């Protein structure tokens, strides 16, 4: 892992949700789908349920739910919503090409 995070192409993502709501579940599944398709093997998703860990909301400045935070690669980015627009997710996370198309 640690060697992977040093790589410029490695994606460290955090998805903040609150309980098992429709929006949360949709966001989780949408994100997983994008990552599997475009970032196989070079991503990690950390799903944080604020319903269980409310203290984490303040430290990451979370307001909207769901919120996706791209911690790596820098700079830090936030996308809010259930990630239903695939194109926008790719643009938002700066994922331009599929691997292999390089």
């Amino acid at each position, binding site marked *: 892992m640690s060697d992977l995070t040093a790589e410029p192409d490695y994606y460290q993502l955090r998805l*903040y949700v609150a309980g098992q709501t429709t929006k949360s579940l949709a966001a989780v599944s949408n994100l997983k789908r994008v990552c599997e398709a475009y970032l196989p093997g070079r991503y990690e998703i950390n799903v944080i349920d*604020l319903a269980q860990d*409310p203290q984490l909301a303040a430290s990451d400045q979370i307001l909207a739910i769901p919120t996706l935070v791209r911690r790596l690669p820098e700079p830090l980015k936030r996308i809010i*919503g259930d990630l239903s627009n695939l194109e926008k997710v790719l643009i938002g996370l700066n994922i331009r090409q599929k691997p292999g198309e390089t």
Partner: protein
Amino acid sequence: MPADATLPLTLAKSQTGIVGFDEITLGGLPNGRPTLICGSAGCGKTLFATTFLVNGITQYGEPGVFISFEEREHDLVENVASLGFDLNHLIATRKLAIDHVRVERAEIEENGEYDLEGLFIRIGFAVDQIGAKRVVLDTVETLFAGFTDQSILRSELRRLFGWLKDRDLTTIITGERGEGQLTRQGLEEYVSDCVVLLDNRVTDQVVTRRLRVVKYRGSAHGTNEYPFLIDVDGITVLPITSSGRDVRVSTEIVSSGIPDLDKMTRRGGFFRGSSILISGVAGTGKTTFSMHAVNAACSRGERCLYFALEEGPEEICRNARSIGLDLRQYIEAGLLRFEALRPNLYGLEMHLARMHRDLDRFKPDVVVLDPLSAFRGPTFEVHATLLRMMDLLKARGITGIFTSLTLDGEQTDNAELGMASLMDAWIRLMDIEANGERTRTLYIIKARGMSHSNQVREYQITDNGVVLIEAYLGPEGVLTGTARLTQEARERSAQKRRLEAMERRKRDIARRREAIERQIAELQASIRAEEDETSMLVSEDDAHEDALLRSSALLAARRGAAE
């Protein structure tokens, strides 16, 4: 609202601890409901909210949460430190939680459906952590800049306010003043329980802060605009017009400190709690009269608050010493306090506000305002301010002594007349110029509730204070100054002459009496001499007769013997 208090369904209220505000709202903000505080930038919204939280903690034992959308925690702590609020200590003792919600439009991208559950969780977490009863959201409108989907935002805010209400949290939501509506985003639509508007107005380069309760569902409240102060003591709101007219009326008489002046009224002084106006042109000793009153009050052991608008406390003490009054001892004893006001530093409202606070703090028995005339402004405004000031004093049963500078000449200006109608007693000090000299005179124009002398009296300011002089009232009119003195001298010599003449007549009579008595004695003596002579003659006659009788008897006897 005493009637309300007896009703079981009275709206519960949370006191803000802000002086005056709890009076206007008859108890504070609606308990367990959101209140919107709106106003333009710099009008004190954040301070109001912070004060509400801090007072909640320190005075009412209700922990509070501050959700700041604008200022960082550190800045917030620093900003209110000048007011003596130690937020760090409150945070450390788990009475206060501050959460800075940073909304950065550039960092956020929207994709699909979302809600603001994160904000709910943060507030909920902060509240649960310290068991908060009070919450401040400052300024929630910042959210509108952070999210593009306004319809989500609006429905979420509506949900948020409902949620806060369900959790029974007394909440202050601040909002920036908008064009044509109370807040830019129309937050007043969502917060329907209580809306307070703060205002910051500049007139003639003088700032006046005002507060108005726009609405308060389920409760009566003062509807006026009330001035409020922000200074080292935090926020003070002045419910000045809330003072009713049912004031305590005293029949007790207090001395003006000048015995001669007291004697000019039938009751020997003025009513406690009345307002007394001392008006006069420059140099008639208006301040001297008020010093006397202060001295008299303090020597009775009463508390005195002296609002000095033109002179400093040191000057007044020094000047008082020159007429034999030691005011410094009363300052040291804590009975007398000077408040120096600068008339043009604040607007009238602010002055009134300050006085109001000072009155409540010092709780004086006598208040001096020297001079009233230093307040400048539109006549109606000055008049309204003074009326309220007098209401303040009357409601507290405080005796008010006001001095007023009048301009030279006979005519009293409108302001003075306006003021005078509010006053219970009015002493007019005058300068009479005649025979190349100036003489100070005074008379009582009115003294409500007691008869008083109608005389114009001359007075002098001596080393022992103000002394009234018996006026010369003669067939030649009222005379003052040297005219009085010469007239008195003239009268004295005339009287002397009269006395001498009287003496002379008495002596004459005595002499005549002696002469007559002498005559009587002489006559009596002569008559006595005559009587003596007569009686002597009578006895001689008798003797002669006897002798005759005897000789005739002898003769008869002889004759008979001879026959």
